[in-house]
């Protein structure tokens, strides 16, 4: 998976380990410990399986027990089986620039990540609160602009956002639901608490891997799975379908026609688009299958034109309508924006939601939650410096070697400076860029990510992970219990992107 919204997470510079070195006693977890865990060590970062004292966390006891009883060869065999399952099912991503049609599997780690019931409940409440507020914010921004008038969010910040769509001003959105699919990136801080790193409110991807990981895990490790009561996630397809149905314009009452709009077979996430269409039993269309006549969207079928009511688009705003946005786009359909404004078709996510995942707007989400819901945010943000703000800018420019600087509208790790890993020359270059366009940048402290045990090179070793749950908003918020846990499979790496040695693993949310 090489998504456009991947975000590498970063660690604190020169992170000290306990006692100044990796704590690696010969037998850290009891005298009979299996050598699979030799050298697992303990570090300052939060570990998903072991607490600070090296004791196994209660909800991981059965997993630890199973792993200790398995040999490296046995796990190796399971790994092969799992990899083969991904390959034969064609759960692959396309490698760009390869004419031979090379498709690679997204590396899969065998060892599931277990999340206790109580912790998930907090996440669920926090994500629900956040997405509810974000939708109220988007409606407000594109209509009366109360939050701007009251000075909670600076007007200048919104209007200068690259993903703010003036075309959406005053456009009614059915049910006032702008973001119906979000893929929020969460990481744990050193204290183990989840914080939101990024909201991903445009076209988040990866959900097919979440579902495929579960299927394969159940197939290769049924006995382990059986020892837990894991909440199911297979209902995602039905939930997504219900979410999209709820968005249908009134004229489509009854049986709305829903489609998934893909950029096409060349897109790296094409497998996922085809997968979701199949899961929901709806058509997978490309821009060239659609046409707009009299402000109504049709798809061209062998039985003639068929009206389209809801488009789950996996195409960015810029490419949706060559008449309204980028004229060179062949991925969308001319006239779509007008049909949308006329209320004849629903688009999920709505046009212009990128405004709310602008990295500078992100800094205001806690204030946005307080403003609309009069509640304290349940999930915290990562501390963020706005470089348009003179005092923040002064501090950041003095501490470039410690901080991470990001361009606000970019994703996928582009336009970033990772202070601790940067050269003096790169810092100087970024300094110039920041001074030339301060609104375009934010800075954050370099983060420690939590560790999770992973099966690597025949042993179990700690690797850094993040978590992306998928949040759906139709008539109400629903979140399948789980998400995509991405893993930085390279030792010491904090980058979970698939293009840079990232993989993923199954995520188990336990029943109470």
């Amino acid at each position, binding site marked *: 998976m090489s998504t456009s919204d991947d975000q590498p997470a970063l660690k604190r510079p020169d992170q000290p380990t306990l006692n100044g070195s990796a704590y690696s006693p010969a037998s850290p977890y009891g005298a009979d410990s299996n050598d699979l865990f030799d050298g697992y060590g303990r570090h300052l970062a939060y570990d998903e399986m072991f607490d600070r004292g090296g004791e196994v966390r209660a909800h991981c006891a059965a997993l630890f027990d199973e792993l200790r009883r398995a040999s490296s060869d046995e796990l190796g065999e399971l790994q092969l089986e799992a990899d083969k399952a991904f390959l034969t099912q064609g759960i692959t991503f396309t490698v760009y620039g390869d004419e031979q*049609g090379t498709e690679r599997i997204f590396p899969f780690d065998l060892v599931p990540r277990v999340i206790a019931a109580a912790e998930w409940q907090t996440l669920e409440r926090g994500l629900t609160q956040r997405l509810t507020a974000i939708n109220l914010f988007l409606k407000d921004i594109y209509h009366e602009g109360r939050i701007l008038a009251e000075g909670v969010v600076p007007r200048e910040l919104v209007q200068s956002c690259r993903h703010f769509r003036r075309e959406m001003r005053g456009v009614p959105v059915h049910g006032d639901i702008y973001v119906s699919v979000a893929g929020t990136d969460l990481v744990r801080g050193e204290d183990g608490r989840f914080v939101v790193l990024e909201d991903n409110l445009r076209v988040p991807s990866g959900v097919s891997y979440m579902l495929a990981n579960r299927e394969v895990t159940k197939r290769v490790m049924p006995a382990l799975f059986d020892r837990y009561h894991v909440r199911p996630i297979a209902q995602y397809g039905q939930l997504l379908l219900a979410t999209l149905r709820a968005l249908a314009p009134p004229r489509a009452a009854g049986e709305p026609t829903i489609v998934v709009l893909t950029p096409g077979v060349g897109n790296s996430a094409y497998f996922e688009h085809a997968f979701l269409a199949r899961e929901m039993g709806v058509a*997978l269309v490309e821009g060239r*299958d659609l046409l707009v*006549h009299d402000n109504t969207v049709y*798809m*061209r*079928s*062998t*039985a003639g*034109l068929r009206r389209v009511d809801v488009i789950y688009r996996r195409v960015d705003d810029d490419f949706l309508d060559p008449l309204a946005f980028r004229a060179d786009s062949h991925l969308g359909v001319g006239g779509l924006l007008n049909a949308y404004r006329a209320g004849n078709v629903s688009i999920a996510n709505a046009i212009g939601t990128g405004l709310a995942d602008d990295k500078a707007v992100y800094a205001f989400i806690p204030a946005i939650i307080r403003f609309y819901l009069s509640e304290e945010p349940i999930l915290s943000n990562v501390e963020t410096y706005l470089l348009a703000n003179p005092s923040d800018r002064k501090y950041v420019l003095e501490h470039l070697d410690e901080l991470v600087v990001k361009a606000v509208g970019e994703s996928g790790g582009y336009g970033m400076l990772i202070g601790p890993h940067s050269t003096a020359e790169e810092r100087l270059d970024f300094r110039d860029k920041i001074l030339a366009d301060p609104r375009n940048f934010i800075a954050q402290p370099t983060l420690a990510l939590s560790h999770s045990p992973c099966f690597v090179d025949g042993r179990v070793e700690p690797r850094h992970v993040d978590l992306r749950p998928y949040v759906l908003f139709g008539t109400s918020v629903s979140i399948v219990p789980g998400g995509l846990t991405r893993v930085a499979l390279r030792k010491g790496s904090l980058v979970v992107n698939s293009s840079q040695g990232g993989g993923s693993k199954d995520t188990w949310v336990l029943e109470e």
Partner: protein
Amino acid sequence: MLLSRVADSLYWISRYLERAEHTARLLDVRLDLGLDRRRGDDAWHFERLYAALRLQPPADVAELGPASLVDALMFDTANRDSVLSCVTLARENARQVREEISSDMWEQINALFLRIKQAQRERTALARPHYLSRAVIEGVHLFEGVTDATMGHGEGWQFLQVGRFIERAGTTAALVDLHVTTGAAAGASPIEWLGLLRSCAALEAYCRCYTADLRPRRIVEFLLLNVEFPRSVRFAAARVGSSLRTIAQLTGRGAGGRTERLAGRLHASLDYGQVDEILDDSHAYLEGITRHAAQIHAAVFQSYVMYPIESALPA
């Protein structure tokens, strides 16, 4: 509901696979016949193969050896009709409709593609091309079997049938035309008639029907008009006609539309054809069939894929 683009892709998947199978078989037969050749006949055989495939032979055809012939017709992707080109295009079309076809179908077409790519890398096929030709033919047959066994026989399946049998009607007619036209020409031997039957995978079926007594008139009759043999032009036309009728029903078009009329006319001309009359002016007759197949193709495209929007808008 079937998207027009999807129908188009399904149609081309089976057209390209049919073409790949045809090319592989013709190459196999021709190289085998060539082994019995007299010295200095290479160029004649190779030119004949290109003519049978309706391709322009390369300028240096006289200097081509069997290995470079195999390379050109199997692997050369600059040639859109090479086996690798056809299978690659079929696979690309299959990739674009993966949500419509079964996983087994995808895996089969993918395996065929990978098999040819492997042969291209290993280069053993240049010395012993027979085995690769067989593998291609078998791979296509497997795809057809997997398709019948794992995909619903609905509208999409019918488009797969239309593509395969339109291609087959056209290629078989052209092949027969070449042999009848040059039947008495210099260089042609009775072995050529045997080659024609083998090129249509029809030798055994013909013998069962007429014994091993190979007579040009009977061979032409068998390949054009036999009602049971699945590679005869008449059989192909019947299948095109019945699939198009079903598609017309499924898409709510009334009976007797343009595609159906064209397919029905082609089928009727074969149903009521007499081989003696056909042989009176076989070239005109066979050209007529090829032209007819092209018209059906165009009509399918205009009716179901690129129809004018005005005709399809709700009133």
